[in-house]
C-alpha cells in the first residue's frame, strides 16, 4: 500500500520554527510498524531525521510519539491500524507534547525523569531481613494489588498526553504517580506515608482533573487513572484503609 507520511521536523541549528515534511512511501506492508516507516525515511531518503528507538517491540519505551493525534509507541503501532482503506494510509508523526523539543522527534526527557526521581521510586524497608537468609514473604494477593503499575516502562506517553501537565509542567504527572503507586501498595515497603506527603503537595495528585487521557495513551495497558484515584484515596483515608481492586486476568478483565 501507499503511505502519505508527514513528519514534524525541527533542527535548532537551521530552523526558526518546526515545520511538516511530507514523504510518499510505496510498497508499504500493512503490518509494518510506524517505526519501520521512519527507518525507511532515515535509511533511504533523509539521514538527518532524528528519533530515539531501541527494542522495536514496545518494551524499552524509547519511541513515544504523537501519531495521528495520539500518543503511541512507533514500534507498537502498525500501519493498518491507521489506514483509511486497504491501499492507502495518511500518517502524521510529531514529538510528544509538553517537553522541550531538542530536534525532530526527540524531546528533552530530563524534566520527566526528574519528576520520576522525586517520588522516591525505590523500595524502602530498614527492618531486619529474614533470619534464614531467604526472601521476604509476600502473599500472591498482596503481590497482585500493585501488579498493574509494575508494568510501567517510563515512555512518557501518559504524562505528555495530560492537559494538566501541558498547562503546568511542574505537575508531577501520571507516570511518576504510577511509579509511586507501585511502592505505596507494595506490602514490603515502609515509606508510603512519605510518598503520599510528596504527592499531596500542590504539584502532586490534586492537579489531576480525571481527564482520562493517560489511560488510553498507555502502551502497556496500565489503568493509570485508576492508580491515580487509589493514591488520592490513600491520601484522604490513609494507606491502610485503601486496597486496590485487582482486575481479573484475560480479555474479559480489560477495561
Amino acid at each position: 500500500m501507499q503511505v502519505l507520511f508527514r513528519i514534524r521536523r525541527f533542527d535548532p541549528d537551521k530552523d526558526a520554527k518546526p515545520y511538516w515534511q511530507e514523504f510518499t512511501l510505496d510498497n508499504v506492508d500493512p503490518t509494518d510498524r510506524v517505526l519501520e516507516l521512519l527507518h525507511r525515511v532515515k535509511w533511504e531518503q533523509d539521514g538527518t531525521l532524528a528519533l530515539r528507538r531501541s527494542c522495536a517491540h514496545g518494551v524499552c519505551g524509547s519511541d513515544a510519539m504523537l501519531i495521528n493525534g495520539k500518543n503511541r509507541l512507533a514500534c507498537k503501532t502498525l500501519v493498518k491500524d491507521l489506514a483509511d482503506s486497504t491501499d492507502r494510509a495518511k500518517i502524521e508523526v510529531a514529538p510528544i507534547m509538553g517537553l522541550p523539543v531538542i530536534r525532530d522527534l526527540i524531546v528533552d526527557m530530563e524534566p520527566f525523569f526528574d519528576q520520576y526521581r522525586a517520588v522516591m521510586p525505590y523500595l524502602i524497608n530498614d527492618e531486619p531481613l529474614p533470619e534464614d537468609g531467604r526472601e521476604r514473604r509476600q502473599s500472591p494477593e498482596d503481590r497482585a494489588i500493585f501488579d498493574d503499575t509494575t508494568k510501567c516502562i517510563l515512555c512518557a506517553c501518559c504524562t505528555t498526553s495530560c492537559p494538566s501537565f501541558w498547562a503546568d509542567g511542574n505537575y508531577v504527572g501520571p507516570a511518576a504517580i504510577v511509579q509511586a503507586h507501585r511502592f505505596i501498595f507494595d506490602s514490603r515497603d515502609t515509606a508510603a506515608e512519605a510518598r503520599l506527603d510528596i504527592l499531596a503537595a500542590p504539584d502532586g495528585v490534586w492537579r489531576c482533573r480525571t481527564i482520562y487521557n493517560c489511560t488510553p495513551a498507555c502502551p502497556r495497558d496500565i489503568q493509570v487513572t485508576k492508580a491515580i484515584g487509589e493514591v488520592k484515596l490513600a491520601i484522604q483515608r490513609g494507606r491502610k484503609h485503601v486496597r486496590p481492586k485487582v482486575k481479573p486476568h484475560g480479555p474479559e478483565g480489560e477495561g
Partner: protein
Amino acid sequence: MPTHEFDVIVVGAGGAGLTAALYASKGGAKVGVVSKLYPTRSHTGTAQGGIGAALGNLEEDRWEWHAFDTVKGGDYLADQDAVRVLAQEAVSAIIELEHMGLPFDRNPDGTISQRRFGGHTNNETKKPVRRACHAADRTGHMILQTLYQQCIKNQIRFFDEFHVVDQLLSADGRAAGVVAVQIGTGELHTFHSKAVIWATGGWGRVWATTSNAHSLTGDGPAIILRRGLPLEDMEFFQFHPTGLYKLGILITEGVRGEGGVLINGRGERFMERYAPTIKDLASRDVISRAIYMEIMAGRGVNGKPYVNLDVTPETVNRYLAEAGETRRIDAAYIHQKLPDIMDFCQVYARVDPVKEPIPVAPTAHYGMGGIPTNVDAEVLATPDGQIVPGLYAAGEVACVSVHGANRLGTNSLTDLIVFGRIAGRKAAEYAAGADLPALPADPGGEVSRELERIRTSNGKVRPAQIRAKMQDVMMARVGVFRTAEGIQTAIDALHEMQEDFRTNLTIDDRGHKFNTDLLEAWELGALLDVAEVTAVSALARQESRGAHSRDDFPKRDDEHWLVHTFARRRDDGTLALDHSRKVDLSLGHMPKERVY
C-alpha cells in the same frame, strides 16, 4: 575536551552494568555509568521468562544440578570453575534482588514462584525442574527497573546518552578510562578512571532476523578488538528457537515451560523425535536445528518457513494428560503467566494464543562469546590468563565462559547479576589500591578523526545498504547451519563491505546535535568487525558443538576442540586465532554424548 574523573567507569546500563555500578559504589568507589541509552531502555528489560537459581521453592533442587545442566547445555565448552560460581552464587543473588524490591511472582506460601525452562532438570529423574524465578513474563523488565531504582537510591552518577567509542589504556597497559560522544551535542568527553567495567551487552544486529534491539551493535567487543585485545569464542551465537515469524520478536521459552508445544505443518509434535525425554524443553540449539530440519524437509506450516507454537489450553491439557500429569491450565492462567506474550502476538501477528497457535522461527538471540574474563571478571589480555589491570567485563559482552557453546534459558539474567556483582566488587577493591593512571597522549584523537571522516564522507554507499548486506550474508552463511564454503563466501563479502565502509561511504547529516546518522554509521563499523571475527572463528572450528553447527564437520570433536578460540587483530589488519586455552573441567563433568 571535557574530562571527568572517577574511580570506576561502567560502560552500559543494563542488568550487568547497573549491578556492577551498585556494588562498586557499595565498595566505596566513586562510580560513573556511561550509556548511549537511558538506563531503562537497555535490552535487559526485554528478557521475559525467568532467572535461574536452585532455590528449590517448589521441589527439590541443588546448585550442583544447575551447574551440570549449564555445562551440558553449553555442550561441555563452559569453564566449570565459572559455572560453579554462577550456580552457587545465583541463589544469594536472587534473594538480594528480592530484598531490593523486585516484585517476583509468589507461591501460596509467599516464596518466589519458579517455573520450568529448557534444559533445567532434576539430575536424578532427568525430568524438568522448576528453577526459573519470574515476574510474569517481564522478569528482565523488573530486574532492570529494580536495579535502576537502587542506583537512584544510592545516588549513582549517570551519563545518559553518552556513546562510548574508545577504550583508553595507559602506556604501561592499564585501563585508564574511555572516550564518549555526548549524543545531544556531538562533543567528545574523556572519562578518566582507575578501572573500567564493560557491560554493553550483545551484537544480535549482525543478523537479519534477531530478537535484539537496534542498539545492540557490538560496540564493546569492537572497541576491545581495536585496542589489540582478544575476543573469545565468537563463533558461538545462539539462535532462539521461537522468534515471532518474520519479525524475530522473542517468544519466551516460558511458553513451553508452562506447557506449550511445537507442532509442524503435519500436526506432529516433532520434538518427540529429536529429544524423547524432555521434548520441547530441550536446549535451544537442539530445538532451533530441529525446526530448520522440519522446514527443510517440507514440514513447515502451509509450506512456509515456520512452525507453530501451541499453548492453547486444549492442546496443553491433552499433552499434560498424556504425560500422566494432574496439572491443567485454562485461558485465565495463560493470561496471568504470559501477559506480554499475549500482547505481542495480538499486536504484531493478530494471533490470540489461547485460541490459536503462534507462528515461530529461530531468531538470532545471544552471544556466548565476547570479551574474555576470568572468574573475577578481570579482562584477559592473553589465552594463558594474563590480565589487563583495571579492566573488567560482565554480562553478555563478557565470555567468562559460563555458557560455553550454547546458553541455557534464564542463565543470561543469572550471569548479569552474579558476574555484575563480582565485577563491581573487584573493580572497587582494585581502585582502592591503585592510583589514577596517566592518560595516553591525545586520548580522543584517533576516534575523533574517524568520526570526522564519517561525518564528512562523500562516497556512494549508505550505511543502511551495507548493513542490510551484512545481515543477509550472516543469516544465510553464518547462521544455524554452516559450511566452510559458505563461511568463506561471507568472509569475502564482509571484507568488501569493510572496504566500502572505509572508502565509499556517505551519510546525510553533517551536524553535531543528535547526529544519529553519524553514530549509526560508526555502529556499522563495529558490527562489521564483530561479524568478521565471528565468521573467521567459525571457519577455523572444524567440528559441531552447541550453537556452532558445521554440515561438513557434523560431530563434536573433544580430542581437538575442547578449547576456546581467542581472536586478535594483527597490526597488518588480519585476524590471528589461538586455540591454546583449554576448557576448565574442575567440576569433573567430562564430555559425554548430549541427549535430551
